[in-house]
Each structure stands twice: as C-alpha cells, then as structure tokens.
C-alpha cells in the first residue's frame, strides 16, 4: 500500500513538473501529447523542454539511487554513495578533459565510465594506504573519496579556465544540472545505466547474502569475490553513465536508500526498485524546486540537491557515528 503512495506521488510530481507555470488548463496540456501543434509555444515548451527535463530527472535519480543502495551494502558504510566514493568526481573530470580535447558526446560517455572507475579506484587506493584495514567502519574510505572528489573538482575547474567558450557550456554541468539541453546525452547513455541496473537486479540475491556476511554467503554457495567485484563494477558503471548525462548530481545516491530502507528492509531485491522510484521522485522534486522557487529565475538543480544532501549527510553522521558517544 505504501508503495502505491510512492507511485501516486511520482505521478503527481510528474504532472506538476510538466504543468506548473505553463498557464494552460490540464486538458489543454494533455493535447500536447495527443495532438501536437508545432506552432503552439506552450506545446513546444512542454514537449521539448519539460518532458526531457523530467525524463532526465527520473532516469538519473533512479540509477544513482540504485547504485548508492548497492554501494552502501557492499562497502558496509552508511555514508557510501557515488558522490562520496569519488565515482561522480572521476567521471566528471574525465568528461571535462574529453571536452577540452574535443571529443564527441559518445566518446565523452566512454570517458565518463573510465573516469568513474578511476575515481573509485583512486579513493580505495588512498584509503588503503591511509590504513583502511585498521578502521572497521570504513570512515577513512569516505575521507579518501572526499579528497579525490575535491581534487577532481579543482582539476575540472582549472581545465575549464583554459577555454572560456567551453567554460560557459560546462559551468552548470560540472555542478550537476538537470536540464533539457542534455536530452541528447540521455538518448545516448540511458541504456548503459539500465543495463548495469539489470545486472545488479540479477545479482540482487547473492549481493544481499554477501551484505549479511561473507562467510554466510560463501557457505550458501556464492562466489563472494566474483559477485562483489561484478556488483561494484556494475554500480560504478551505472553511476558514471548517469554522471555523463547531467554532471555529478550529488547525494541522491546517498540519501534515498536511507529514506527507503526503513520501509523495505535491507534486501536488495526490494530495496533497489523502491529506491529507483524514490530517487526519480527526489530528483523530480529538486528540479521542480530549482525551477519554481525563485521564479522567474531558475536555480541549478544540482546546487539544490547538494544543499539538501549536505544537511542530510550531517544528520547521518550524527546518527551513525556520534550516537554512541552522545
């Protein structure tokens, strides 16, 4: 029943996202899809601006939330997410470097995948050198991820400074921006994200067993090493492909699984689909706020998500790491 409410919320938000501020009665809006009139400005805005925007928000939110849900389980850290493990940062800086070198959109997508893997690898490597083994709760990994992300952001900004024209085009993108101008990226990269999510769904059962304990999983006949690597790889690919579309949209992957988990429990085959819907909803709401809160000016949705995400991040730290001492 609760999940029905989630879907109703999603539908309502989608409707609001398309309709709010368009100045059309809902029936006239419906005509956009049934009987499109290319000369009607309102129709044009809804079909070519708002619909792509809503689709990007839904796709990116869903993919990032799934990826975050899996990462939190695999790394055994409540603060793990694509944005905190350096995946988004790495993908972002590789795409920017690709753009500076003059690569096309498709090649940038491949660069994003390589970058996401490189970012995650770098974060884990730094963490291991700084003594991850001594720290059972894996907080050092989050620190290393933050350092890698900080470095990536610095490098991306520096690269963009060398090319003012590119800078204007990518300045919004590097802080995460759900925007209809990235619709062509969505059409090129959406299948990568869903393919990776599909792999994760197939692996949901063994992955959940691994989360409960590696020995338990091994005794149940799971190839722990291979499944973990495959799960990690798929979630990195999913998150990087989402980053390739609209930049590093922060913290959906961190926050949404935490919001959903109390209702679904930790089992991934329930957690992931619900996280996907909730993630899409979160991005849709963030984009709606970014667009309408300061109307007629519109804010960047990535910035809204970062602000909200930072707050929730602080709350999570208080709950998970300061609770024992308080």
């Amino acid at each position, binding site marked *: 029943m609760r999940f029905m409410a989630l879907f109703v919320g999603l539908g309502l938000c989608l409707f609001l996202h398309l309709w709010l501020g368009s100045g059309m009665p809902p029936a006239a809006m419906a005509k956009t899809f049934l009987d499109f009139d290319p000369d009607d400005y309102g129709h044009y805005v809804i079909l070519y601006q708002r619909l792509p925007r809503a689709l990007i928000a839904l796709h990116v939110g869903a993919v990032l939330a799934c990826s975050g849900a899996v990462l939190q389980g695999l790394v055994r850290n409540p*603060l793990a997410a694509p944005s*905190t493990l350096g995946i988004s940062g790495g993908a972002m800086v590789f795409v920017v470097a690709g753009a500076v070198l003059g690569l096309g959109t498709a090649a940038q997508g491949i660069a994003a995948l390589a970058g996401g893997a490189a970012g995650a690898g770098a974060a884990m490597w*730094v963490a291991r*050198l*700084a*003594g991850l083994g001594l*720290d059972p709760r894996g*907080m*050092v990994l*989050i*620190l*290393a991820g*933050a*350092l890698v992300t*900080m*470095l990536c*952001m*610095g*490098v991306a*900004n*520096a*690269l*963009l*400074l*060398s090319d*003012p024209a590119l*800078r*204007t085009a990518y*300045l*919004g993108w590097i*802080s995460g921006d759900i925007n209809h101008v990235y619709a062509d990226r969505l059409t090129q990269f959406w299948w990568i994200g869903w393919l990776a999510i599909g792999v994760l769904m197939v692996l949901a059962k063994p992955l959940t067993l691994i989360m409960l304990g590696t020995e338990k999983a091994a005794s149940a006949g799971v190839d722990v090493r291979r499944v973990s690597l495959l799960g990690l790889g798929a979630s990195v690919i999913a998150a990087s492909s989402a980053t390739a579309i609209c930049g590093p949209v*922060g*913290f959906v992957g961190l926050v949404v699984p935490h919001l959903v988990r109390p209702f679904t429990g930790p089992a991934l085959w329930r957690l992931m689909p619900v996280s996907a819907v909730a993630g899409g909803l979160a991005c849709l709401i963030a984009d709606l706020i970014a667009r309408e809160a300061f109307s007629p*000016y519109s*804010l*960047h949705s*990535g*910035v809204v998500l*970062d*602000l909200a*995400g*930072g*707050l929730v*991040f*602080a709350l999570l*730290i*208080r709950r998970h*790491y*300061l609770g024992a*001492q*308080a």
Partner: protein
Amino acid sequence: MKPARATDGQELVHFGHLQFRARHLRAGLLLLGVAAALSLVSTMIGVTRIGGSDITALLRGGLVDDAGFALREVRLPRIAAGFMAGWCVALTGAMLQSLARNPLADPGLLGLSQGSMVMILLLILFAPAAPPMLLPFAAMTGALAVALALVLLVGRGGAGGLALLLMGIAVETMLSSVTQILILYSPPDMSYALSNWLAGSLSGADPAAVLALLPWFLFSLGMAVWLGRSLSTYDLGQDLAMSLGENVNRSRPLILVVSVLLSSAAVTAAGPLAFLGVMAPHLAGFLSPASGRPRLILSGLMGAVLVIAADMLTRSVSGELALPLGLSLTLVGVPLFVISLRLRALKTLSNR
C-alpha cells in the same frame, strides 16, 4: 657545536641551548637549499629576460630597467608569497593531522578553506569597493564560523578524530554549493575572475600582498615552536597526551584557532591550495620521519618548496595555455606523493 647522541641513539647537534636531531637538520637544510635553487631558477622565467648578471646587479642595488621592475615588483613577491602560503597551508595540514589523528586531515577537507572562500566571494561580489585590507578578516570570519559550526555539530563527546573530519565534509559540501551559486549567477567576467581565483593563483602577489602575509608567517613560526611540543604528545593519542600532562581542553581549541588563522591567511594570498595540506606533511615525513616541532617545520618547508615549484611550472607554460596554480600543484605534487607511497610500501615489504 658538539656531537652527541639522543636516547634512541641518533646523532644530536647543539647550537647554544637549542638541540636538533642531525637527521632533521640535514632534511631542513636540504629543503631550504631546494627552495633557494628553485627560487633562483624561477626568477629567470618569464617574458622579460633575466640572467645571472641582473640578479647580482639587483643585490648590489643598481638595477633600474625592465629587469629590475620585473624582479622587484613581480617575480620576487610571487616567490615570497608562494613560500609563505605554501608554508602556512602545510603547517595547518600537519597541525590538523595531529589533532584529528588522521593522515588525511586537510584545511580544505574540513571546510575551513571553503568558509574563507565564501566570505571572500561575498565581499568581492557585494562590496567591490571594499579595501583589500578587509579580505583577510573576511576570510578569517568565514573559517572561524566553520570551525565553530564543526565544534557545535560534533559536540563534546566525539570531538576527536574521524567524526570531526566527516562533519567537515558535510559542511564543505554545503558551502561549496554556495560558492557554485555565486559563480554561476554572477556576471560572466566577474564569474571568470572568481573561478580564476578559486583555482589558486599567485598572480595577485605584489609587494603589498607580501607585506600583508608576512605577519602571519612570523606568527606561524612562533606557533610552530610553541605548539610543537603539545602536538608531539597528540601524536601518541589523547589519553596518553593527557597523562603526559598535556592540558587537552586548553590546547585543542588553541590549535584549531591557529589552524583557522593560518589557513585563511594562505587562502587570501593564493586561493585554496587543495590537497597540499595532505601532501606536504606526508612528503616531509617520507624525507625524515619526525613529530612535534621538527615535523611542523619540515612540513612547512616542504609546502613552500611545492608551491614555488608549481608556480614555476605555471609561469613557464603561461604563453601556450593557462595552467592555474591548483592544477600545476597537482601535477607537481601527486606524482611525488604516489612515488613516495610506493617506496614506503616497498620498504615495509622488505623489512618484513
């Protein structure tokens, strides 16, 4: 000067009442030598050609033409500001690492630099007419506010270690989205200037900027000597530090405030130098493992050397492409960082 041995059998060197481990002294002199050599090469890089004879002429006080102007007004101030900014950031990193007992603590990671930047950006954007003298104070207000927020958010119980750093990341994330808003919605030329500064740059370093930074540098020297002993007890852990007679409740806030002041002075002069606070103390420790005062001073010198080298790289390629200081610092520092980590891993393996 007479040779002696410390309790651990290492050579000691005495100068009057001061005593140093010979190892630390050698490392310090080496770093100073490298800094001097890099500075000398760095003065000769640039559009105006300057050779060795010009430098000797300047030292005698008889250089007035283009070369004299380039040296006195541009290159030497840049080197001096780079030295002091690098020193301050590295010192802050070393202090915070001892305080948080974590090798990854960094003024950038804790959000201190972000706090300074937000305040400076706000001042530049909303009061462009304000005198530049106000900038350091704006930076300090921002960083102090962040430090205070961190202490309040973490609370008394978990003030030590990782919780502080994680909370720093949360604060840093929120503040960086504020900087993004400011950059995205300011007019294009202003936004370009802002992100130029955010990428780190010594292009604003003139004699006045050097003079503004100098008091902080001297302050940091005094603090390195004064706090060095406390920090060496922190390296042993909070409980042991207290049992060694360290007043943790007094020295902990003191160290935090000193870090805030030094990091904001450096941010005002050169922008945020990301990762330097982690790299420099680590490289210094690789050169000569130390704790307390020698660790602070060697880290500071290493930071200064890295920034001077990075600025040299920035200026030597400035004709063909814009390479902001932050990026060249990454290009110079990260390979060294990686090599030193590799070598250390090999060493521990062979010792096993």
